[in-house]
Structures are given as C-alpha cells and as structure tokens.
C-alpha cells in the first residue's frame, strides 16, 4: 500500500551509490574526495561532517597526524600543549590506546577503504555495464590509477608507521567482515606491485593537473620505499631506489625551485619542484589540521603574525638545539635553510610547555613569494600547500642509495645533486670525501626538516631509539635517553585489536 511505500524514504540532498556512478561527471568529484582525505577532515570546512570520529576533528587531519607522528618523537620538534597524550611523543612512551596514533591509523584505513570503493566502482566491467565509453571511460581509468596511487600512499604510511596491518582491497565490499592481517614484507610487495602497475597508467611527469598524482609521484613513492626496504622487509633495495629516483630526475619535468623559501609559501603551487602536494586554500580547502596547524602552531612569543599571513599564533611548536646545531649559524647567513626565530626564545628547553623555550621555526608561512598575504581575509586558513614529495628529496634519495651501495648511479652525480641543494641554500659545496651517509642524514635534516620525514630517517640510520644519538627531551628527560627498540613501530590501536580479533599486536606493546 501507499503507506508502506512511505517507508522507502531516501535522502534529499545526498545521493546513493547507484546514482553517483551512473553519471561519469561525478567521478572526478569522488576522486577529489580521495585526495581531500589528506587535506581536510571532513565534508565541511574547517570542521564538521568528519570523515572519522572518536577524536578531535582538526587534530585528526591526515597531514597533521602524519606530521605529529613523524616529527614530535624526533629532535626536530617539540610541542607545548597538554592535549591528551601528545607529550608521550616526546617521551617515546605512547600506548596502544593513544588517540593520535589511533587517529592516524583510522585516517590511513579511511583512505584505503574510500579508494577501494572507487576502484571497485570504476572497474572496466562496471564502466562497460554503465555504457561509459570513449573519453569518459579513459578518464575514469586514469582516475582509477590515481586512486590506486593514493591507496598505495596510505599503505606506505601503514608500512612505515605500523608494520603489519589489516589488508583490504577493492575485492572487499563494505560490511562488517574482519580483514586479515598482512605482514609488513607482504604489504611492501603489494604496494610495490601496485605502483609498478600504475606507473604508466598515470599521466606523464608534470602532465597531470596540479594536485593530481602523475608518474613521478609513483616513482618517488617507490624510491622512498626502496630506500627504506632494509627496515621494512629486512632486504636492502638500494639499486631499485637509485633506479626510480633516476627516473624522476631524468624525466627533467621537475626542477629545483631557485629560492628555497618559496617552497613553503602561499604560492608554492607555482613551484616546479613539488612532485606531489597536498593542496590547501584559504577559502575553499579549510581545515584545522594540515597547513593551518603547521603555520599557526609554530607562531607565538614575540613572533610578528603579519609576516606569517595569519591572525594569530597557537604557540605550540618549536625545535630542539639538535636541529639548530645542524646549521653553522642560526641566522641563515651561511645556509638559508636555517629558518629560526630566536628573539625572546632560548635555545635550551627547560620546560617543554613554555613556548619561549626552544627556537621557533619560520619555514611555513601564508604569504606569497612577493609578500602578499593569503586569500582568507580572516587570516585563519592558509593557501600554502604541503609538499609531500619534492625533487630535493629525490636527489637525496639518489645520493643516499648510491652511498649505501645501490648500483646504476654514481657518487659524482650524487655529489652534484647534493651540492645543487647546498648551492641553492647559499651553503658551501662539499667534497666527494665529505659525502658520507652521516653527512646525508644531516643534510636531509637541513633540507627537509619539518616535512614529516625525520622519524623514518632516524630509524633507517638506527638512531631513533638507542643511545647512539640523544637529543634534548628524547625519552622525556632533558638530556635525552635511550628507549626500547620496539618504539620504531607504533602499536596497532587497541580499538582495532578489539574490533578485529584477526589482528596481532606489534611486539613490545
């Protein structure tokens, strides 16, 4: 009867999956969501309608959490806040109930699941069944390759941060099943095979629209994985790292940004160096995570907010003297990459919660290279994009892989690359004999600090947990201390161990 039919209510403004995929013009909007998982926290900017819940929305942003998990346990950053367990990162003593770690894990698997959904719905069979042909079908296939890239990216973070994790692909439709756990090595092989499979399905290097992944993005990700393969799988893959770094470099599509500072400003979307950005916009891509966090949180004390293009600082992030000491002087006179704010700040950190303890960092700002402020009149949300992959890192991967015995490259070329970075920074060139792996660890820090790489680097160099390298407040004590080796992996969140009895916790937790 008609009354019973009234029970078939459907949403007024949302659409159901059947209607979404019937129209190929929707596909790009679904793809845009997959990218947006990295940038915003939900369907409403800056907050509201979150993608994941159980955690403060702004805090839970993908890039913000990735940054916190990669930087806060290292010598590059301290944070003064009292939010939940955030001080545990400095103390290197987090637990499996940690909200930040759980949030990162959930962001990763949200991106994996959302990508799986899109990949499943854009299979060749499904496209054919919906009579989507010609250019629309070709576009859909490229989108699908990008979704596979994003899924590989998310899994690469899972490999790096968590090791052995649940494994789902487009073959697993949403439901209440319990995914199996895949070993770190097996997942490495899967991500490797995925990236190799899509390498040529993606647009040629720098031929994609800005913001979308191209071939170089996949190659960079492969190179990064290979560089860390010894850690991830127990088997070194330096030659492969050299191979894929070379492919990126030799395509000549990307070039070093002449001015280092411009890489981190509101118009960094114009840079030819950034291979894969996470884009933000003051009016249209708003979040309390991402660059909003990375530009507001390091501003405090006597720092002039106008120079950062924002309305005020959040007074949280600074660095330790270990990073400061990587540079010959703090003013940037001998290396422009030394972007420290020292006025009213002390080099020593006696109290992590005091913003004025430790030098502040001025790397990321919401002003353009010509000094104009970003587009948000309120000064809340920056335009600056986060450079997730950029050519400089590929240079450094090449150099390190060569030094660690990778073949297919040579030390002389490596030296050229490293000196190209130093020349851009106004730092003196180094000699071949000075180009050691230890030097490269320092150079990576000087070039890439605060770009969410440090933890991985320290682990690869075996200096993350033990006493070989101590920095202020490592392990929660001022002079630094060694911690247990199992801290090189984060724990599988307790909530997922309960939700999914198939999972086994990482050792030590």
């Amino acid at each position: 009867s008609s009354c019973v039919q009234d029970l078939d209510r459907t949403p007024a403004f949302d659409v159901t999956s059947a209607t979404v995929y019937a129209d190929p013009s929707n596909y790009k909007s679904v793809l845009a969501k997959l990218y947006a998982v990295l940038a915003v926290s939900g369907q409403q900017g800056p907050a509201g309608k979150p993608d994941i819940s159980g955690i403060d929305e702004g805090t839970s942003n993908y890039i913000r959490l990735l940054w916190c998990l990669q930087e806060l346990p290292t010598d590059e950053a301290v944070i003064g806040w009292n939010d939940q367990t955030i001080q545990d990162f400095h103390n290197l003593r987090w637990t499996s109930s940690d909200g930040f770690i759980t949030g990162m894990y959930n962001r990763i698997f949200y991106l994996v699941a959302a990508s799986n959904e899109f990949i499943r719905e854009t299979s060749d069979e499904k496209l054919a069944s919906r009579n989507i042909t010609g250019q629309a079908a070709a576009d859909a296939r490229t989108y699908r390759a990008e979704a596979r890239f994003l899924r590989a990216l998310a899994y690469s973070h899972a490999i790096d941060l968590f090791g052995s994790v649940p494994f789902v692909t487009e073959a697993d439709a949403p439901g209440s099943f319990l995914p199996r756990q895949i070993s770190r090595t097996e997942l490495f092989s899967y991500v490797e095979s995925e990236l190799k499979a899509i390498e040529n399905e993606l647009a040629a290097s720098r031929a994609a629209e800005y913001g979308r992944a191209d071939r170089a993005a996949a190659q960079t990700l492969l190179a990064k994985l290979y560089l860390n393969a010894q850690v991830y799988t127990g088997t070194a893959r330096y030659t492969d790292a050299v191979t894929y770094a070379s492919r990126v470099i030799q395509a000549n599509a990307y070039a070093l940004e002449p001015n280092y500072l411009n890489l981190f400003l509101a118009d960094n979307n114009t840079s030819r160096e950034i291979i894969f950005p996470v884009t933000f916009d003051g009016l249209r891509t708003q979040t309390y995570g991402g660059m909003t966090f990375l530009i507001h949180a390091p501003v405090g004390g006597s720092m002039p907010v106008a120079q950062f293009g924002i309305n005020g600082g959040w007074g949280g992030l600074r660095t330790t003297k270990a990073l400061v000491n990587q540079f010959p002087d703090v003013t940037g006179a001998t290396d422009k990459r030394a972007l420290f704010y020292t006025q009213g700040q002390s080099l020593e950190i006696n109290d992590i919660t005091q913003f004025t303890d430790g030098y502040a960092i001025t790397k990321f700002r919401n002003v353009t290279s010509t000094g104009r402020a970003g587009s948000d009149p309120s000064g809340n949300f920056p335009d600056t994009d986060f450079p997730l992959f950029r050519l400089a890192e590929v240079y450094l991967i090449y150099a390190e892989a060569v030094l660690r015995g990778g073949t297919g490259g040579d030390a002389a070329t490596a030296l050229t690359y490293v000196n190209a970075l130093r020349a851009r920074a106004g730092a003196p060139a180094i000699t071949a004999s000075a180009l050691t792996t230890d030097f490269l660890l320092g150079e990576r820090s000087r070039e890439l600090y605060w770009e969410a790489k440090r933890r991985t680097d320290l682990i690869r160099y075996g200096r993350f947990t033990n006493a070989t390298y101590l920095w202020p407040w490592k392990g929660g004590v001022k002079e630094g201390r060694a911690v247990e080796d199992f801290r090189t992996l984060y724990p599988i969140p307790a909530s997922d161990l309960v939700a999914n009895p198939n999972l086994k916790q990482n050792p030590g937790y």
Partner: protein
Amino acid sequence: QGLTITGTVKESDGNALPGATVQLKGTNRGAQTDVEGAYSLPNVPTSATLVFSFIGKTAQEIVVGNRTTVDVTLADDSKALQEVVVVGYGTQRRQDVTGSIAAISSSEFQRGNIVNPEQLVAGKLAGVSITPPSGQPGGGSQIRIRGGSSLNASNDPLIVIDGVPVDNNGVTGASNALSLINPQDIETFTVLKDASSAAIYGSRAANGVILITTKKGRAGDKTHVSFSTLGSVSYNPKQLPVLSADQFREVVNRLGNANQRALLGSANTNWQDQIFGPALSSDNNLAVTGAYRHIPYRASVGYISQNGTLKTSNFQRVSGSLGLTPRFLNDHLRVDINLKGSIINNRFADQAAIGAAVSFDPTQPVYSGNDKYGGYFEWLDPTTGRPNQLAPRNPLGLLYQRQDRTEVQRSIGNVQLDYRFHFLPELRANLNLGYDISKSTGTNFVPATAGLLFNQGGQNNQSAGSRNNKTLEFYFNYTKDLRSVRSRVDVTAGYSYQDFIRENPSFPSLRSGSIQIDGRPASDTISAAGVAFRTQYTLLGIFGRLNYTFRDRYVLTATLRRDATSRFAPDQRWGTFPSLGVSWSLKDEPFLKDTKALSALKLRLGYGVTGQQDLSNLSNDYPYLPRYTISDPTAQYQFGNTFYRTLRAEGYDANIKWEETQAINAAVDYAFFNGRISGSIDVYRKTTKDLLATIPVAAGSNLTNYILTNVGNLRNTGVEFTINTTPIQREGLNLDVNFNATFNKNEITNLLKVPTPNDPGILVGAISGGTGNTIQIQTVGYPTNTFYVLRQVYNESGVPLEGVYEDRNGDGQITVDDRVRYQTANPRLFLGMTSQLTYRNFSAGFTLRGNFGNYLYNNVRSNNAAYRNVINSLGYLGNASPNVLTTGFVINQYFSDYFVENASFVRMDNLNLGYNFGKVFGNTGALRASLNAQNVFVITKYTGVDPEVANGIDNNLYPRPRIFSLGLNLDF
C-alpha cells in the same frame, strides 16, 4: 425548621473549589459551590450531616450542630483521583491497570516561576529523574525514566500531548520539545514507566512515555475566567570560586617574571559581579472556560518574559490554546479539538562569558578608556596591537557585543473523533488527526569592532529550521461488562501513521563589516552556504490491547504492536513489541475485605518489549543506505586551477535494526486508613539488547572508523518506593506528605561484536582544556559514563602531588594505560519529598529532591586550578581557582581523580506560601496570592557551584538562580 448553612469549599492547596456538591445526608437535597467555592443550603436541621464531595476528592461528612457556617477543605483522594487513568490510546479504570503508571494532576504540580512543563513534576515521581535546566532562561530539563536504556540512540521518553506523539528533538533555538507548551494549560501528567504499559507505543517506548492532557471545558460549565500573574526576581546564590585581585597579585608577584608582573593592572574587578545580576521575570495567563451553546470550550493565552541572571539573556513566550469538546448525536459522537500555538523569542547570552569571567585577570578594568573594541579592555598582542588570539575576551564585551536571537513558532493541534456505535454502544471508533509544525529563524550578530571576532571582521549570520510532523491514528475499542461471568473486557485495535520532516536551510557565513588586516584581502563573506539539511522518516504501526477483568480483582492486560520505520532496510523494518501484565487486588479477596485499616492492596506483574529507533541525535535517518554526501564549498579540492566539491562515500550498516528493551516489573500498591497512607513499591529490570551504539569498526572493512550498529547490551535494575500520607485531616486543616525513592543500577553488559576480555572501552565525555580530552568511558561491566582517571597520590598532609599517580600496570611510566574506572555520573539513589499544609485560608508547601552516589568531574577546577592559568608565555595573565593555592599545581592535571567529586545533594526545589482572600470586587471574583521560592537551598559536599549537572562534567554551568516570586490568581 432548620438553619441556612453557608460556607466555602476549598482544595488542599487553598484554592476555591467550584462545582463541589454539598448534600444533606440521607436526602436528595443539596447545593453546588459557585465559582468562589461558596454554597448556601437553607433549612438544615441541627442534627443533619452534610456530605461534601467532588470528583477526585475524598468526601467529608460533617455534623452541623448549631453552626451556620461550615467551611471544608477537600483533600485529594489518591484512590479516587486515579479512578480513571490515561493510558495509551484511551483511558482505563485505575483498578484495571496492571502496569506502572504514575499520574499527577495540576493541583500537585510544583509552583513558582516554571517555564517548562516537566519542571512541574520534578521530584514528585519515583523512577523519574528530572535534572533541572541550567540558569538559562527557557532552558529544558533532562528527563530519564528508570535510567537511560540506550548508549547512542535517544534516552528521552516519548511525549504524547493530547494524543499526539510529538517530536523529541529540540527545535533550533528552543531548548526542548516541551518548552513550547505553557505549563498552565496542563491538567495531568502521566508517566508510563514499565514496558507492560508503554509497549502499546512499541518502537518509541523504550525510555518510557509521558502523556500530557491539557485542561478542557466541561458540558454545562458556566463561563469561568481565570487570570494569574506572577512576578519573579532571581539571583545567583553562589559565585564560582576565583582568586581575588589581591590573591592574584600575590601569585603573579611570587611566580611571574618581570614581563608578567608588568602585565598586572591596578583595578579590582569582580568579573562575575559584572556579568551576572538579579533578573526580573513575569508570567501572565488568562483562561476562559465555559460552554458556547452546547460546545464546551477552554481558551487561554499566556505571556512569559524571563530574564536570566547572566546579563542579556532573555526568553519570551506568547502561547495560546483553544480546546473545544462538543458532543453530538446524543453523546455518541464526541469531538475533541485542541489547538496550541506559541511564539518564543530568545536572546541567548554568550555563555563563554562565564568561563571568561572565571579566567579573566581581576586586576584589569572593565573598560579600557578608549573606544577600541567597543571600549572594553582586551588583552592585545603587542606585535599587532590587536586582540591576543589566545587570551580570553572581556567577559562583559562577550555579552554586549553579541546578539544571538531566535524566534520559534510552533503549533500543535489535533482533531479527535470518537464515535460510539448506535447499534452497539460498547464499540467505539476513534480517529485522531494531528500535526506538530514549527519554524525557527535566528540571527547571530557580532560587530566588526568587537574584540571577540575582530580578526574575522565580526559576524552576521542567519539560521533557520523547520519541522513538519503529521500523525494519523485510528482505533476501535470494545468495552463490555459480562456480568454473567463476572468479567469485563476492554479490547482496542488500531493503526498509526506518523511522518517527520526536519529541514535546516544553509546560509552563508557573513562578516558584519569588511575588514582589511595585514594586507589580507577584504570580503563580506566568510564562507559560502554549505549543503542544506533535510531529513524525513516515517513510522507505521498496528496495535492491539486486551484488558480482561475477572471478579473485579484479577486483571490481565496484553498488548501487541507491530511497528515499521523507514530508517531501516525493508528486511529489518518491522518489529514486534508484545507485553503482558497481570494484577491481583488482594484487598477484594474475602480474607481482607473486612480489614478496616487496609484500604487497598494490589499486586502487579508485567513484562514487555519496547523498541528504539530514534537516531535523530546522530542526524542521519538513512543508516542502512550507501550514501554519498557532497562537500561544502569550504571543503573542496583543487585540481589544476579548478576546485571541486567532493563526493564522499558514507559508512553504512545495511543490516541495522531495532534496539530492543525487555523489561519486567513487579509491584505492590497499597493504601491504609482510608487512603491516608498509600503508595507502591516497584521492582524492575530493563535489559536492552542489540544496543544501537556507535563503536569502532574493524579498520578497512567500512567507509568509516566508527559505525552505528546493533551491538551490546545494557541493563538497568531498580526499586521504586512511593508513600503518600495525609497525617492531618481535620476541618480547616490538612497536611499531605509524599515521599518517593528510586534505586537504579545501570551496567553495560556487552559492547562488542566479538567479545574479548581486553575491551578498552569507548572514550566519551569531552572536557574543557587541551584539545580532544575526554574523561569518561563506556566499558562492559561498568555503568554508563564511568569516569576514567589516573589515581592521584597525596603527600602526608593530604595535598595532591602534581603529576604523581599510581603506576597501575607497573611499567614505570604514567600513561593512558594507568587510568582507572572510578565512579559515575549516574545517581544510585534519588529521592523526592513534597509536603503541603492547608490551614483555613493559608497554605504552605515544599518540594525536596535529593540524589545520592552521583559524582561530578569538576572541570571548572581542573581547567582553572593551575598556576599555568595565571602565568604563561602567551602574553596575558589569567585568573585561577583558589584551589591552586592548596594543590600548587603548575600545569593542569586533567586526568587526576582528585577532580572527580561526590556530588550527592539535597535540594529544596520549591517552598510556597498561599493565602486565599476569598471573594473580592463585590463578590464577583476570588483572589488568591502566593509567594514562592525556588532553589531555596542545596546541601552538598561538592565544591563547585552546583552539584547537579546532567552528564557528569561540571564546566561553567550557567548557574541555577534562586528565584522568589509573588503570584496572584483571580477567578471570576
């Protein structure tokens, strides 16, 4: 011959009782009282006995003697009052009731400045916990019947007004669904507490049902006009503890560096004195009852204006109601028409001012002396000269520089046609058509010059919402006394259709003035309008009830309801909700019949299943559908130079279904000494299974990390006692004392799809301080909202040691894993006591209420009692709780169990005095005056400002004021 006897008949509250019968015993001679309760009966012999009676009152017999004036006060007859009880879809004789039904009528309601109907019965009903609202004018209470049955779905009872089940959801801008009803229009308030009585409402009855009937005109009534006016003054009895200006200076001088000391001002400002002040309110009502030709009617208008003690807060309501109750076809067709309408105008004060007043430096002046930022003193960022973004804003500026207003219009109405068949008068057909429509509009304006949103350029935002709910219900009822078999049957069968639509259009967020700061671009729009919200769901139900009475003492009630909701997939849509209740009136058995002292004794036993599908607080009426939602313009993603609004696949559970609550109830109803002592004892257990809870989903298996699904079980067990006594009942003097008590124990018995012993639980209970911190947890084996804290360690003088906690797991580190589950916000025991005394023209009464075993997290302290609140490196000074002088905490210790305090309390809700002046204005009217005090005192060990906070986290509650009111009632 005899004398002419005159006199007045009053109710126990001192009100005149019109229409009471005065009869000469043994004759059919008598009289009725007039509108002032007066009567006159001529020619009465001195030996005569007068019988005074009125429906719902205990009749009194008085020997005249040689008096000529006999005044009488008729007490409520608890037994008689409950002769007829409102139940779902009709009424029942009290004696036929098998379930736990508590009814309370207008004469027993709480008095005073009462805005919302539920406050009328606070403390009066066992098993019904009503947490009064904060001090916000027009605020609504939290109502819980026998504990909450759900974790994430709604715990609010179903409210049925004159037969129309209304929407539980608050309308945008109004505190709760009941706030639009004028309490003065309410006749009875009936609560169906157990499943056997509530199950007739099936899918919506898991949290109990509240049935409200409004006052009506009666056939043959003379025109009766009643006017009441009430003027109130309210003030805050207590201030939140903060350091005085001198204590504050001492702390800054002792601990601050030169820069921080230089920030000290020379003023002595009590910020709470600035933002709070005594507030005046008035409440005026006019009701006309009578009959126009053969149409009985009641019409009323009410106007209430309530100011809050927090400056700028104001609530105004104009309400009107019209009830018509004509009867046709020789009373075979009864028509009930009810129309109610109200318009609420609210100005919401920015309650952030309370927190700001607590944390604002008391050495700073209120006004800066210049005209920047509205003239208010603000902490400025020395590098920009603009308001320091991290500092609190001027508390008074927050109030006067924000105009947050809403207007809500609502109308509820229904037409009920009840036809008694001419050929079969035992059979009735009843059709009820109802609607509940509301509309709200709001504006929220902050000038661009205000410190509050200076960097943003102020705010000029709009909001709106509407709802449109329709009800159609139809049932047949067949009632017949089968005298031959000494039985009575009462059978009901019916159909129900309800449809609910909620809409919220989206508006852009606008500046109130264009700004240009630091060379950033100017624009009037902060953000474009997002996606509008519209949701609709539909409920269908068929129901039946059989009530069978044998020998007037054995009663059986069985109900069955089948319900469907559009919220679930077709396969899961229908649910079946049966119930069974039996009762046995022992008093009517021969062996007790002659026991004079015992006037009633009845045993009841009930079982029922109720459902829950109200997901409205999760704002999704389509949890089973694979949906894609479009992003707002502020959450787009850039490809090339184009920004795309994105389409997000939502997580869903295709198999989601009803949450089901099974409840059993066993009870004894008793009355002694002609009803002068009466009451009941109920024992219950409610078990909710397939709990609709939001739980973590196995990572990767769905398109979300938390999903609403049917998982887990929850149990509420409890005992309720009610004792109503009339210790004194004499001519001109009457005393009623009523007491009720409820023990309730609540426990989560399962919360996992796959049970494991290491359930970490689900963190809930967000607190102020830091970002994303929570203080409560839902865990199997514990009550809901159990506090989850670190065990504080104290020094030998009992002072808590900053950051020193028990290392529960012995790993040498203090982490989340050392937190323990400690106490809960739910009271173990709650009590209510009311008493009413009448002596001639005076009346006096009070209501006491107490909760025991409930704990509160003192978030005001945990967030303010640290020297870091005073001294920081962020360029301003802030005030702290004086508790810091005891603890010496430098950094806030949010997770210390030190801040979980026992919040048991006894509160006198109400104290009232009345005086009846009798006839005034040349005998044309009757005047009664009353003096009320509300929130008279609170006895508690809790250190915060008020121990009663609904969810267990005390965080700068808008203080409940103490209210004194003077009321006048005039009847013509």
